[in-house]
């Protein structure tokens, strides 16, 4: 089955995936910055950030109303809104869109929640196929150390408390993240992830990402992909 719709450009879509605490958000922020400095027009889209469904998601989380199915569908609604209103138009305009988490997050999490695999993969068939998908591979204990040490309070759904894995929220989080990790690992080959060793230093991970981007996009900006010079040229025309 075809998972996604091919991106017919001219823009480029880069996504980062990995469990909480894998460091992917830090890396995509650094990569966006670097691409901007190289003259690219860069846009950014984060998982679960559509203003259209924000209140509904908040209500559902606050009152703990979600079932695995409605949880899956509200995240798909959020994703669809960002896809239809933001990502697709920007890619058509020639921007580089960087996405922090993508449909793979739903594939991994919803599966752990017991949702049917074929069903959830079908939902996301409208998504564009990323030009590059980075997966931040990290052992569970390393990621847990970063999360549990840094923030004070884990949230109910983030810790998978709805699954009844454990009454202890930290223990629930461990089990939940471990299962998500296994789902990600099983997708690496199937989805063609570029694996980044997320136990390495921030600098060396970033170096590796930039190397992959240069290899895939070329050293000079591909035709049709928007950049600063092009904009400047238009302003002076």
């Amino acid at each position: 089955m075809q998972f996604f719709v091919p991106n017919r450009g001219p823009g480029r879509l880069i996504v980062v995936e990995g469990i909480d605490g894998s460091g992917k958000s830090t890396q995509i922020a650094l990569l966006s910055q670097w691409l901007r400095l190289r003259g690219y027009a860069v846009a950014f889209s984060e998982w679960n950030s559509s203003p259209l469904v924000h209140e509904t998601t908040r209500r559902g989380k606050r009152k703990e109303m979600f079932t695995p199915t409605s949880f899956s569908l509200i995240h798909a609604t959020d994703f669809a809104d960002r896809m239809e209103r933001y990502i697709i138009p920007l890619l058509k305009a020639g921007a580089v869109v960087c996405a922090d988490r993508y449909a793979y997050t739903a594939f991994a999490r919803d599966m752990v929640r017991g949702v049917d695999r074929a069903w959830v993969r079908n939902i996301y068939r409208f998504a564009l196929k990323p030009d590059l998908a980075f997966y931040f591979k990290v052992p569970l204990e390393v990621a847990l150390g970063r999360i549990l040490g840094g923030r004070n309070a884990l949230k109910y759904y983030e810790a998978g408390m709805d699954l009844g894995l454990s009454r202890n929220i930290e223990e629930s989080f461990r089990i939940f993240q471990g299962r998500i990790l296994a789902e990600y690992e099983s997708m690496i080959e199937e989805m063609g992830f570029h694996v980044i060793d997320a136990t390495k230093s921030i600098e060396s991970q970033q170096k590796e990402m930039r190397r992959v981007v240069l290899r895939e996009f070329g050293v000079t900006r591909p035709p049709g992909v928007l950049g600063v010079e092009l904009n400047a040229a238009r302003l002076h025309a």
Partner: protein
Amino acid sequence: MPDYKDRKPLSYYSTALPGVDYSELQGKLIVIEGPDAVGRSTQIRGLKPWLEEAGHAVLDTGMARSALAGKGIKEAKQGNTLGSITMTLYYLTDFADRLENEIIPALRAGVVVLTDRYIYSVMARAIARGENRAWIEKTAGFALVPHAVLYLRADVPDLISRVVVGRGAFDFWESGMDLRFGRNMFDSFVRYQSRLIRVFDSLAAPYNFQVIDATRPPVEVFESLKASVARIFDGDDKPAAGDRRKSVRPAHPSGSFRAAAIRRKS
């Protein structure tokens, strides 16, 4: 195209919901479908007391009425940026919430569930807007197969007179103005509703709709609906089947059904 004609009522179409024991479901699920302004809610207002008169406990529900997403959908429709895939998935979120938190608990308790629209309206709207049919059929495939889908069928001229006489104005979404099927709301309404009716018609056979001619006066439509609904209960009231009687009464309302009923009131 998949065909669900022979599916057993209260099983699922193509995807089982996690955590649901389908063998526990014992109520009746009755769907009233049809295009905008065809008179669905008027008929439901009549059917509910008629069923209650006969001793059935009735839960009536309908699109965009979920505690989870009802409000969000209404707000989203106030704006001008709701894409058709987003709209489809938002409505299915609403449906999933009502299915799992209201409809299924009610059916477990032996209640008759009367629903104004079902997945078919969500599917028809998506298909009329050019979305992939296989995609939406599979995505909505977690729905329960109803005991009856009563499709109130009318043509566009009937709908127009109902909109003008009954409501006094055309609605942005009912006119498909998000895709501007015509130069003004009337032209767009005519084209969009014609498409919707064609799509509903194409769903009738695979999803086993009973077509009810809704161009007739409401009292006649009501008689047809009552006859169709009565057939669902055929056999249930026979003395020999005494043990099945309780299946149409809320003998053991579960805690979650009560919670849902309370939540709907607030």
